[in-house]
């Protein structure tokens, strides 16, 4: 048996790269999909609207943990394909991110008064031009604090990936705890690292909220 040393802490810091990778994948793939969801949900097309709503309801109603399990353990059973942990986790986080960011952004889009899109239409702009130049910039401002807030949730939620064996921050903590029999120290370090990442973000979100409130 060995004690908890600084090198255990460094190993955890090293594992942050996988936490970061998951977050970046989720944002890079889930972000554009989220925008598509938001536009489908605020579109006048009933079919698009219903499709987006069904996806949203499923994702909102199923715990993220369940989705992770489904894509990792379920896919081999149902489809007979074994997917690598990183892929299955990425798929789950992408869907999760797309649904929730989509809903946040839809709220932002719909919070922009309908007068604004009418004014754009009356000036001869196409619907896309109106969205791009008039609605989206205002919706972005409105939705930015909630978006940052979601980002914080996402970062913490990547810890769930540990259950399928991906060695990100939380899993690294588990391993250190098991190797050193110092769970308190190990998990305190994990918590401290998450906090160090998330705290600046929540502060940023708060300052954005204040700033945007003044502008509006």
């Amino acid at each position, binding site marked *: 048996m060995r004690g908890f040393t600084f090198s255990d802490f460094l190993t955890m810091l090293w594992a942050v790269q996988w936490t970061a990778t998951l977050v970046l994948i989720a944002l890079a793939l889930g972000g554009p999909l989220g925008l598509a969801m938001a536009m489908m949900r605020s579109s006048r097309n009933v079919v698009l609207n219903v499709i987006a709503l069904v996806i949203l309801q499923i994702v909102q109603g199923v715990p993220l943990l369940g989705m992770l399990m489904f894509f990792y353990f379920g896919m081999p059973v149902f489809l007979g394909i074994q997917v690598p942990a990183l892929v299955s986790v990425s798929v789950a986080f992408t869907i999760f991110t797309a649904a929730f960011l989509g809903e946040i952004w839809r709220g932002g889009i719909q919070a922009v008064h309908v*007068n604004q899109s*009418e004014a754009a239409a009356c000036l*001869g*702009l196409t619907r896309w031009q109106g969205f791009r130049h*008039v609605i989206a910039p205002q919706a972005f401002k409105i939705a930015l604090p909630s978006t940052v807030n979601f980002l914080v949730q996402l970062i913490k939620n990547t810890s769930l990936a540990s259950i399928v064996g991906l060695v990100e921050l939380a899993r690294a903590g588990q391993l250190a705890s098991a190797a050193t029999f110092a769970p308190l120290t190990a998990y305190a370090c994990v918590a401290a690292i998450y906090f160090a990442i998330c705290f600046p973000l929540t502060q940023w979100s708060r300052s954005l909220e204040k700033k945007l409130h003044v502008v509006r």
Partner: protein
Amino acid sequence: MSFVDIRNVRKSFGDTEVLKGVTINVEKGEIVTIIGRSGSGKSTLLRCINGLEAINDGEIRINGELVHDKATDLRHLREKVGIVFQQFNLFPHMTVERNITLAPTLTKRVQKGEAARKLALDVLSRVGLEQKIDAYPEQLSGGQQQRVAIARCLAMGPELMLFDEVTSALDPELVGEVLKVMEDLARQGMTMILVTHEMNFARNVASKIVFMHAGKVHEQGAPAELFANPATSELKNFISSTK
């Protein structure tokens, strides 16, 4: 055919019929003022004229072109038919210059940069606000915002302008500056259709008054005549209630 030809227009919202067969003709250069109590269908009619609202029956032609027709390019039409709203509806995240030049540059009528700025200065001078070109809407008073909205409309080079109660949201002391801009436009020969509660403006500037009541044109005619000898008791009551 008249420049604006509104014939037997009917419009319902659900079960409520708001316009019950409205017919109005507007000639080029005419200033037509629509008056009437709230709920008489004035604003709805105005919104129908530029295609913001669909109609259930009848037809509206502008310069011969049917507004409510699938073949009509509404965007193209709206470049000729400007509308100014009660709530200004300026874009709050853009400067006055960008508010004015956004549509002309997107529709490629004007190049970005110097030409666009020149256009903005030109239309702002017509509403007396050149010095506010770099301001944001929130930095302007209500009257100034409405004048910018009129300038934004003018930048499209419209042949017809619609004004939907443009002074109703303004503090009383700011109404005058907006009305003055509209008087100037009228004098320059702009064809205008406006919904207003400003009876003095209607009396002095309009070439024709249309009194709407319960979704129909109740009376219409030259202002002097109509105000002096209202034919129906509804108009009589309306005139005395606005004094």
